[in-house]
C-alpha cells in the first residue's frame, strides 16, 4: 500500500508540474465546449430569426389574394412586400428583383382568381343539384394559375414548404366557398335565411413536445449535446499526456530502474490509472459546471441535469476508465512520444467524429449511425443522452457504461499481452 501511495504521490507531482499537459487536459476542452456551444446556438438563432424576402403581387384583390397575403405575412418565415393591382411593368420588375436576389421568391395572384374558384364551385354544385342552381356552367370549370418564381439558390425543401402553404390557403378558401354555396342552397330548400357562418377555427389542433421516457422535457439545446460530447472528447484526449507519461518513464530508464526494485508493474500502472481517472472526473465536473454557470452568461440556455446523479457518476467513471485504459494501451505499444501523440490525437479525433461529438447522432445517416456504434465515444454519448435528455434510470444507462468498461478491460489486456510477449 505504501508503494502505491508513493507512486500516486509521484504521479500527482509530475502531473501538477506539467503545465502543457494540464492545458491540454483542462483549458482546451473548456474553450471548445464554450465556443462550440455558443457558435451552434447563435447559428440556430440566426437561421430561425432571419426571414426570407418575398414579393407578393395581389392582382386578385379578393378573398384568395387577401388570404395569401395574410397567410404569408403571418407565418413568421417571410419578409413580405405586397404590390396590389400591379401592371405589367411592375410584374416584370418583381421578376427581375427575384432574379437579382433581392427577393428569394415571387408570387403573382392573377386577377379573378377568387372569382374562378367561385365559378368552379358553382359548376360543381350545378352538376349535383341542377334544379336548385339553373345556371349555364359553360366555361365555369376553368382552372386558375398562380405564378411562383424563385431565386435559383432557393432550396427544394423551401419551395416545397411554400407551395404546400399556398395550397393550404387556397384550399381553405375553396372549402369556405363550397360551404357558403351549399349553405345557401340548403337555406333555399328549407325556405329559411340562417346565413350560417363558416367556422374559422381548426377542428384538429396539433400539440407538439419532445417526449422522454419518464415525462416531458424542454427541447434539447446545444448545451445538452455539447457538454457530454466534449467531456468525452476531453477524457479521451488524456491518452496523449498519459501515453507520454508512460513513454517518458520508459525512455528515461525509470521504468527499468523500477523493474529491478521490489515493486510490481501493476502497482506502477495502477497509480497512473488512478491519477488519470481522477483527472477525467475533474474534467467532467469542470465542464458540467461551465455548462450550468458560465455558458448562460452568453445568453444560452444552461445545462439541465437529470435527477439520476448516481447514473451520471457511474457513466462518468466508466468513460474515464475507458479513456485511461486507451491511454495505457497507446503508451505501452507506441515506440516514441511522437508516435503516441500523433496516433493519440488522430485516433481521438476520428473516434469523436464517428461517435457523434461534432455532429449529433440523430443528424447522421442510418449507415453512419451503424458505423458510429463502433466508437466508444458513441457509447458514452448515448449513455449521457439517457441521463441528460431522457433522465433515464440506472438500468437504461448501464448497457452503455458496460460497453465502456469492457473497452477498458480489452485495452488493458492488449497492453498486458503486448508487454508480456514483446521480444527484443
Amino acid at each position, binding site marked *: 500500500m*505504501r508503494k502505491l501511495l508513493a507512486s500516486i504521490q509521484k504521479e500527482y507531482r509530475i502531473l501538477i508540474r506539467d503545465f502543457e499537459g494540464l492545458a491540454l487536459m483542462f483549458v482546451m476542452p473548456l474553450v471548445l465546449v464554450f465556443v462550440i456551444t455558443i457558435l451552434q446556438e447563435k447559428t440556430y438563432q440566426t437561421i430561425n430569426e432571419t426571414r426570407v424576402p418575398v414579393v407578393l403581387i395581389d392582382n386578385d384583390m379578393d378573398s384568395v389574394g387577401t388570404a395569401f397575403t395574410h397567410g404569408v405575412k403571418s407565418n413568421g418565415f417571410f419578409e413580405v412586400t405586397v404590390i396590389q393591382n400591379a401592371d405589367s411593368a411592375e410584374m416584370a420588375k418583381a421578376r427581375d428583383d427575384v432574379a437579382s436576389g433581392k427577393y428569394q421568391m415571387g408570387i403573382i395572384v392573377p386577377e379573378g382568381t377568387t372569382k374562378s374558384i367561385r365559378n368552379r364551385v358553382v359548376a360543381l354544385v350545378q352538376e349535383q343539384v341542377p334544379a336548385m342552381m339553373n345556371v349555364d356552367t359553360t366555361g365555369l370549370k376553368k382552372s386558375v394559375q398562380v405564378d411562383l418564381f424563385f431565386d435559383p439558390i432557393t432550396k427544394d425543401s423551401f419551395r416545397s414548404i411554400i407551395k404546400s402553404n399556398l395550397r393550404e390557403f387556397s384550399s381553405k378558401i375553396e372549402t369556405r366557398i363550397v360551404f357558403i354555396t351549399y349553405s345557401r342552397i340548403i337555406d333555399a330548400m328549407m325556405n329559411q335565411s340562417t346565413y350560417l357562418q363558416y367556422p374559422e377555427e381548426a377542428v384538429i389542433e396539433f400539440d407538439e413536445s419532445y417526449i422522454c421516457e419518464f415525462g416531458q422535457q424542454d427541447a434539447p439545446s446545444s448545451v445538452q449535446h455539447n457538454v457530454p460530447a466534449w467531456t468525452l472528447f476531453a477524457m479521451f484526449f488524456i491518452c496523449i499526456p498519459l501515453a507520454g507519461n508512460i513513454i517518458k518513464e520508459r525512455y*528515461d530508464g525509470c521504468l527499468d530502474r523500477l523493474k529491478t526494485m521490489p515493486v510490481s508493474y501493476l502497482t506502477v500502472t495502477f497509480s497512473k490509472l488512478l491519477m488519470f481517472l481522477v483527472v477525467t472526473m475533474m474534467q467532467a465536473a469542470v465542464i458540467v459546471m461551465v455548462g450550468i454557470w458560465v455558458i448562460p452568461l452568453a445568453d444560452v440556455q444552461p445545462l439541465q441535469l437529470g435527477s439520476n446523479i448516481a447514473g451520471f457518476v457511474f457513466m462518468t467513471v466508466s468513460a474515464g476508465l475507458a479513456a485511461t485504459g486507451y491511454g495505457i494501451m497507446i503508451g505501452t505499444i507506441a515506440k516514441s512520444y511522437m508516435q503516441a501523440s500523433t496516433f493519440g490525437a488522430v485516433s481521438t479525433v476520428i473516434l469523436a467524429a464517428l461517435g457523434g461529438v461534432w455532429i449529433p447522432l440523430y443528424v447522421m445517416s442510418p449507415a453512419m449511425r451503424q458505423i458510429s456504434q463502433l466508437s466508444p465515444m458513441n457509447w458514452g454519448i448515448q449513455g449521457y443522452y439517457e441521463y441528460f435528455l431522457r433522465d433515464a434510470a440506472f438500468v437504461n444507462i448501464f448497457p452503455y457504461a458496460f460497453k465502456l468498461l469492457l473497452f477498458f478491460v480489452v485495452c488493458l489486456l492488449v497492453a498486458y499481452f503486448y508487454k508480456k510477449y514483446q521480444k527484443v
Partner: protein
Amino acid sequence: MENNVLIEINNLSKTYLKGRDPALDKLNLDIYNGEIFGLLGPNGAGKTTTISILCNLIKSTEGSCSIKGFDVHKEFRFVKPFIGVVSQDIALYQLLTPYENLVYFGSMFDLPKKELKERIDYFLEKMGLYKVKNEKIKHFSGGMKRRVNLIAGILHDPRLVFLDEPTVGIDVQSRMVILDYLNELNKEGVTLLYSSHMLDEAEKLCTRIAIIDYGKLLTVGTPEELITEYNSNCKNLEDVFLHLTGRHVRD
C-alpha cells in the same frame, strides 16, 4: 574463492530480434563477493547486454546466470532487495526534485520513513547536493544528475551494485566524488560490477577486470595480471585493451 561466488554466468548468449550477430556469445564468468569487477569492451561488445540480463531487464537466448544462487530469470524476486542498479541513463523523474525522486525510489524498498529521510539527507550531503535537494532535476548539470542517479541505486544499502558507465560525460570533480564513494562502498563489503570505457579509471578502481568483444570473453584477471600477461606489448591496461580488441573503429 569458489565458495564465495556471487554472480555465476554460464554459456550466456543473447541474439536480439533484429540483430544478425549475437550480442553475447557463450559468455562464462564468475564474480566474487566483495570485488570491484570491471567489465570492459568497445562499443557493442556486450557490456550493457550482460548487465541488462543480470538485472532481468532482457531475457538471454541461451545459457544461465545466477546471483547468490538464485536464477536471475526465474527467481529474480529474491534477488531484487539485494541489488542496486546505476544505469547508463539518468533514470530519474526530471520534474521532481532529488529529494522527491529518492523518497519515491526508497519507498519501493519499504525503508522506514525516518530511516529513509536520514539516509537521503546523508547521501545528498555526501555527494554535495544537499543545498539543491528541493530543486527540479531538469535544472541540474550532467554531473549533479549522475550523482543523484548513483544515490538512487545505493540508497537501500544493496550488497551488489551494477554500475553501467556511471561517470560518462561528467567533469573530473564529479567523477572523483563518485569514484571515491564507490571505493568507500566496496570497503564496506559491497560488491560492484562496473562497466566503462574509461580504462585508466577501471585500472585504478577495479580489483578484477574482464575484457569482452563481440560478446565473447577475451581475458579476465586483476589489472596487474593482465598487464603482466601481455608484457611484451603493453605498459598499461589501455595497451592490453587495444592489443586484444584491435584499433579499428566500432559503431
